């Protein structure tokens, strides 16, 4: 009897999720029908205008740009701190660093947004100006208008902080699973500690770390409020990360939802479905890679 109660609850969850997905598709349909193929190629977002002109091209670009850049910032720091905890620090110290890095994950995203907007953005202006002045010949550091502020660069630093703990936590687990014998074998051959890490720890944990990075990517893709606060919402497609502007699918939903009309809300739901599909792909890929290594990543 009890057995069937538990099974029924489990089945109910499946049914509810299926129902919700169906409703999501149904609600997204009017917008997709209105926009047609333009939904994938159009940059502007005027779903409630007549004629309606909207599409996710710029949003999708902005989502990928901020997320990839957040990874570029976060992954070295996360892996470095994870290696410090597992390979260098004394166990007690390592445990405390682990706790503190986990606290970074507990900070609500709206607080990151507020802090990013009012603390980080003004303080990053000199750095951004420095990059534009001295490395402006690189396409992504170009900033012809010489105006600095709520840029993709600043947003992705905030995002990087938010995904750092998940990448660090999973990497830590992965490094801990590397057999002691491998480490001792290379130390016994006279390797320095770094040579030991490079030849034993990193190769053995490569796929696990890849999984951790994809998990972080999934987080970055879906992050909403912090990005909505730190980015000025524009609809351009370019590489110039120091310019004020940029937008993401999730942030666009948060900023446009309040003022959206009927088609507007349907369009936001459709864009959310695209986001869902991308993060789903990322999650499935990450799970697959991590499962293979035997470490099950925590949520």
């Amino acid at each position, binding site marked *: 009897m009890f057995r069937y109660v538990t099974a029924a609850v489990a089945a109910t*969850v499946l049914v509810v*999720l299926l129902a919700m997905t169906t409703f999501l598709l149904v609600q997204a349909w009017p917008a997709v029908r209105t926009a047609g193929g333009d939904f994938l190629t159009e940059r502007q977002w005027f779903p409630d205008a007549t004629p309606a002109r909207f599409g996710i091209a710029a949003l999708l670009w902005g989502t990928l740009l901020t997320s990839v850049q957040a990874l570029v910032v976060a992954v070295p720091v996360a892996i470095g701190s994870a290696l410090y905890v597992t390979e260098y620090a004394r166990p007690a110290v390592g445990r405390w660093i682990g706790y503190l890095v986990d606290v970074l994950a507990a900070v609500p995203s709206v*607080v990151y947004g507020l802090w990013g907007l009012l603390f980080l953005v003004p303080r990053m202006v000199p750095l951004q100006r420095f990059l534009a002045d001295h490395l402006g010949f690189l396409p992504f550091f170009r900033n012809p208008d010489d105006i600095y502020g709520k840029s993709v660069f600043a947003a992705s630093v905030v995002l990087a902080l938010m995904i750092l703990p998940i990448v660090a936590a999973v990497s830590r687990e992965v490094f801990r699973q590397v057999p002691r014998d491998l480490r001792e074998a290379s130390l016994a051959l006279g390797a320095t500690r770094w040579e030991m890490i490079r030849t034993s720890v990193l190769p053995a944990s490569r796929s696990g770390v890849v999984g951790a990075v994809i998990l972080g990517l999934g987080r970055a893709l879906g992050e909403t409020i912090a990005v909505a606060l730190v980015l000025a919402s524009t609809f351009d497609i370019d590489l110039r990360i120091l310019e004020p502007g940029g937008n993401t699918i999730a942030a666009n939903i948060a900023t446009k939802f309040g003022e959206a009309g009927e088609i507007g809300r349907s369009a936001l739901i459709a864009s959310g479905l695209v986001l869902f599909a991308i993060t789903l792909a990322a999650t499935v890929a990450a799970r697959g890679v991590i499962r293979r290594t035997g470490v099950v990543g925590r949520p």
Partner: protein
Amino acid sequence: MSTSPVTSSALRTNRMGRGEGLAAAGAGVILTGVAFWLTPLQGRADFLVVAYLAGVAAYLVGAARLEGRRSVVDRLAAVLMVTAVGICLLALGSVLVYTAARGVKALDWYFFTHSMNGVGPRDDAGGAYHAIIGTLEQVLLAALISVPAGLLIAIYLTEYGRGRLASLVRTVIDVMVGIPSIVAGLFIYAFWVLGLDRGFSGLAAALALSILMLPIVVRSAEEMIKLVPAALREASYALGIPRWRTILRVVLPTASAGITTGVMLAVARVTGETAPLLLTAFGFDSIRNDPFSGPQSSLPLFVFSQASSAFSTAVDRAWAGALTLIAVVLLLTVAARLVTRRNRLV
């Protein structure tokens, strides 16, 4: 590392001691100071960056002179890892300290006892009472939905689950972990608010939050139930107690500390969620005690709406709300860790 009594000096090379390393790094920093004093270089942030680089460079040069190339690479790697940890701690400290410093300004009794009803962005009045009520009700409802459901699913997966349904449920829970919170909000918006035409409400927000809580509860409960020793169950079966009673009276109580930790971490996580609430609770400036109909506010929504304003009075309120939120979430997180300490299974 203890020194070996065997005289094998050929295997041991010169070592740079801690004192020598510190001296080299210190020399780099002092040189930077002199350079900033004598040349047009200036700025506190610039000084810190240049001093850091000079200190590391001097330290590595010392290592190169005393120990050789391989050791330089080794020490550089160690320095970079310490730097990575430093960046993490610096970021954490900066977020916490800055929020606390800005937050205490507008944080007083008035803030906790008044709503935003009729308060304009420039008015130096208003508080978060309505938002705190909203958050309490929404999170409580979310927990009431997702904790029993999560526990039953975890029991199903660990005790009974075999075959197609179980593997399907496992996959779905795996997928749910990765659902972005805004998409969870969209789910409930499309399903509950629009599809079933229930409109915005605290309950809708609670439903969205329970989508986010459920997989965390299931995962942690599953892990904890798996840790319960088989001997305990067998003892119970040997006394002729049926399986369902064994699960409810022996397995769950044994795993309760760990399950509580999981639930508290899940509550801490969803308390700070903003994005799904935007689409489900929508936000509201006055006090609404009834979570079942009509838009409601919540602490994260309150912070978000005040932060979007250009006026400093509103921004002060946002910081006060952020500090309250961070305090609640961190208290829950720390309390969850303390419960783990008492856990007999880990």
